[in-house]
């Protein structure tokens, strides 16, 4: 019996799926997916830290608007954030914005808002007495955050950051919509060109995403286990 699948379409286009048209054109494919996810996660960890700290600021004029913005972004689908960036960025800068920048901006803003919630929870997990103790030793509020609370809280947040990285790897696939040549876009191009091997192409694509995301999911589970014994301080 003849197999219904013919995976030769994958082996013929394997290099294109991995790096796009790299030596002769712009970098794409899986490499671009990972680069986009990596840049976005770094930006959003910093963005999330800043937003999280502003959310719990005791100055209501700072915290309330920030909380409102964070909740509005969290209420939107990521697709909408990408479209907004697609329209807003050019009208701010007045010029054409590369698609990669659009997607990095959208992903970073979107993920920052989610990470800010992780940061708030991480800070809340440190007993209140620690802040009180460090303030009564003479540290200012920000100093006690910087030297006492955050170093402990951040360690508890590491597994969640890895989980966000996994979400980001999955979310970069939405760059397809604004024309970023990451791996989903490349697979779609191959699909449009060959027409009859869609199932093989998308099974393979799903498999690649699965392997990468599964590695990081397992890493975050391992981190959660190996960090948890230190929580009892």
């Amino acid at each position, binding site marked *: 019996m003849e197999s219904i699948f013919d995976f030769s379409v994958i082996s013929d286009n394997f290099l294109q799926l991995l790096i796009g048209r790299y030596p002769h054109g712009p970098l794409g494919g899986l490499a671009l997916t990972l680069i986009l996810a990596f840049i976005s996660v770094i930006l959003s960890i910093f963005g999330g830290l800043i937003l999280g700290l502003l959310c719990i600021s005791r100055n209501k004029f700072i915290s309330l608007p920030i909380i409102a913005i964070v909740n509005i972004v969290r209420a939107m689908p990521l697709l909408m954030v990408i479209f907004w960036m697609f329209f807003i960025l050019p009208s701010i800068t007045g010029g054409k914005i590369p698609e990669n920048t659009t997607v990095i901006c959208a992903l970073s803003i979107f993920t920052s808002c989610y990470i800010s919630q992780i940061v708030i929870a991480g800070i809340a997990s440190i007993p209140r007495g620690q802040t009180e103790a460090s303030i009564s030793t003479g540290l200012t509020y920000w100093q006690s955050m910087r030297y006492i609370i955050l170093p402990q809280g951040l360690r508890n947040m590491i597994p969640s950051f890895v989980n966000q990285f996994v979400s980001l790897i999955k979310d970069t696939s*939405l760059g397809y919509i604004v024309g970023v040549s990451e791996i989903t876009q490349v697979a779609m191009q191959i699909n449009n060109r060959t027409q009859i091997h869609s199932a093989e192409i998308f099974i393979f694509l799903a498999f690649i995403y699965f392997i990468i995301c599964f590695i990081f999911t397992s890493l975050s589970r391992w981190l959660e286990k190996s960090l948890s014994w230190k929580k009892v301080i």
Partner: protein
Amino acid sequence: MSATQFDLSVVLHGKYAEWLYEGLITTLQLSSISCVLAFFLGLNIAIMRMTSFTPVRWFAQCYLEFFRNTPLIVQLFFWYFGSYQILPKPINDFLNQYNFEFVAAVIALTFYTSAFIAEDIRSGITAIPKEQMEASRSSGFSYLRSMHYIILPQAVRHTIPPLINQFLNLTKNSSMAMVIGVGELTYQARQIESQAFKSFEAFFAATFIYICISFSITILVTWYDKKVLNPLGKGTP
């Protein structure tokens, strides 16, 4: 594209308002049908994940890991473009007579969401003390019956807030169905943008609708947490 002037009335009256309304209805249909299907599928997967029969447990585990670690958009493409190679011809012909985009989107959203729902249900069930299962087994209930009569009724109470959140995520995720041409809210906003060049207005209206849906669901969860789970204040079991 210059931001000439922001004129919301374009999308509040006439043809474009109708488009948005149709989009909203499709979004709600898509998410509620998928939600019901995903709930039952997720419930089964969660129970399979916890049985003592190893092959079934492994299957459920693989299912969960696979669907949670794959982007939804890839799954949508797979069901939309790849299904004709996998499904038998009569089924394909049958589906092609109807709204195939919509069916493919429902299938993809159901499988994707069921994996998340299964995890929520599982953590709800594991929150019930193990002794309850042992007690009901020793009073003569079979595994499935003790699940049905003893464990699940208690677990459901604690699973409802995360389940409502999954419904919210599902509604947001349904926006991705536009990539295969389902006429839901984001798709209609895109249509208005390309027809009328009113991108800001169209996306403002669509975003506003999404935010309204999200906030009303969030308020519902908060109310449930306060009134049903913790009627006496925080910390009561």
